């Protein structure tokens, strides 16, 4: 398997150097990606982070209307507390900082440790756990955080930009998460630079259902099927957990290696499914947003909107990965 890198060891830092060169709106230092404009006094700061390999998540969502800083770890490995402490301290504009944490043991532990160390900053946290493929029971680490992270970052970011206090920003973040569900399907494995070979072998006749975003195998294997059948599996799983009603925000997310053309094919099926349920696709995004390196496949994330969330979703955003209204 070929990778467009200089070495597995330097890949994350090299990519960050590229990001810095590509986006003058970002400032990157010690593995933390900041807005070049710096913290704004009185605005709640938003910090997220996680393993690398999910680009544009999270660093690509740093900018006006979304994050103030992102902490990229090694590929698929949570960042370390130092990065998070550094980011949190730097972006605090006096109104406190919200940590947006995807529910993975590693992310949770490292953000928790960091939060404890940020003694001079008021820190609140929101845990994103939207993946219905994982049973939320005493017998798991709980549901994973996947596509809803983008929704949380966008909507909480918009509210923070309006000047809302930390408690409110944290509360809307939690609400977005509570109203969001995801399900992912892999057609191929991904290959991490360090491992250099696919994480799992998947024959041409099979797919993995219920995957996360770290190249983990899914809950079960199933026969390869049409876009219609595959999206139906995803949509049914979501609908069983959170009935599709009212105005929906829909993310049809590519895992990194699936052509946009195919994502649109799947999206047409998602739209038809939603119409069939009598719900309304009020807002949508199609593309590679929360990825797993070169994995082929997709995930669907759906959030049940209300007027406030719709307004905040529509608010201007200016980041490398998501931009409108400015």
């Amino acid at each position: 398997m070929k990778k467009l890198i200089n070495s597995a060891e330097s890949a994350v830092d090299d990519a960050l150097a590229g990001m810095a060169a590509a986006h003058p709106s970002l400032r990157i230092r010690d593995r933390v990606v900041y807005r070049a404009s710096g913290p704004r006094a009185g605005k709640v700061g938003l910090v997220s982070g996680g393993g690398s390999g999910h680009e544009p998540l999270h660093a690509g969502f740093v900018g006006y209307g979304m994050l103030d800083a992102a902490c990229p770890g090694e590929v698929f490995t949570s960042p370390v507390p130092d990065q998070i402490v550094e980011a949190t301290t730097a972006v605090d504009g006096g109104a406190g900082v919200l940590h947006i944490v995807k529910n993975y043991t590693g992310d949770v532990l490292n953000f928790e440790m960091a939060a404890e160390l940020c003694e001079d900053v008021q820190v609140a946290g929101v845990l994103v756990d939207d993946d219905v493929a994982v049973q939320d029971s005493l017998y798991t680490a709980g549901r994973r955080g996947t596509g809803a992270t983008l929704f949380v970052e966008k909507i909480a970011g918009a509210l923070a930009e309006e000047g809302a206090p930390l408690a409110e920003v944290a509360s809307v973040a939690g609400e977005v998460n509570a109203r969001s569900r995801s399900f992912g399907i892999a057609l191929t494995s991904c290959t991490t630079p360090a491992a250099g070979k696919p994480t799992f072998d998947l024959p041409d006749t099979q797919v993995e259902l219920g995957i996360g975003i770290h190249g983990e195998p899914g809950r079960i294997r199933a026969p390869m099927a049409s876009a219609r059948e595959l999206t139906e599996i995803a949509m049914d799983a979501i609908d069983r957990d959170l009935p599709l009603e009212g105005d929906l925000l829909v993310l049809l997310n590519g895992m990194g290696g699936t052509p946009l053309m195919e994502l649109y094919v799947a999206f047409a099926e998602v739209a038809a499914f939603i119409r069939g349920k009598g719900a309304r696709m009020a807002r949508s995004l199609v593309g590679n947003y929360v990825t797993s390196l070169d994995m082929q496949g997709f995930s669907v994330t759906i959030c049940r909107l209300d007027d406030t969330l719709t307004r905040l979703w529509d608010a201007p955003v200016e980041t490398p990965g998501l931009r409108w209204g400015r």
Partner: protein
Amino acid sequence: MGGSPDHETGGGFMDLGTLTTAFFVAWLEEIAEQVRVHRERLTALDAAIGDADHGANLDRGFTEVLKALADSPPTAPGQVLVSAGTTLIRRVGGASGPLYGSAFRAMGNAVEPPVTQAGFAAAFEAGVVAVERLGKAAPGDKTMVDALAPASLALALAVRDGVGVREAFELAARAAEEGARATIPMQARKGRASYLGERSIGHEDPGAASSALIVACLVTVSSRR
């Protein structure tokens, strides 16, 4: 606490039957060496039920541990362990970084020179408790705890039974190894592997495997003197 210097004068691993600073440094060197040797295996285990980075994580971490120890040479066993734990927390990330980091820090904070066999066993237990507490994990969850807890018990029993250091480490290593192997039929309840549900059954937990490796290094180092 780990800060006060130990009794030792030379570079030996044992001094009047107690474990020296040099012993702990050698332990970490051996761990770094073994993690590198077994890097692919650990990553392969993690590929099966996780995200294929455990080998890389630990390799990166223990390489940094050795660098930090070289940069500011510790003068007491506790310092060695606390430094190692801090480095792991600062450099590894993922689940294993905070977990192993906290374990080594807890051990380091618990050892009191002179580090007798009983002192070591107690410190080791403190490390295990730190993992269990942070990870909210218990034996049977298919995590590193499944290797660490039996090793800790073996060390404690060896003290009770008056078994010598070398033999105690061997018992602990065997217990850890068996504990790691016992994770194979388990269904994971913690960490990434728990997402797989029943599909996690049939694979050895990568963290349990690395824990067994870490305990085994006690034997190697103690056999050297």
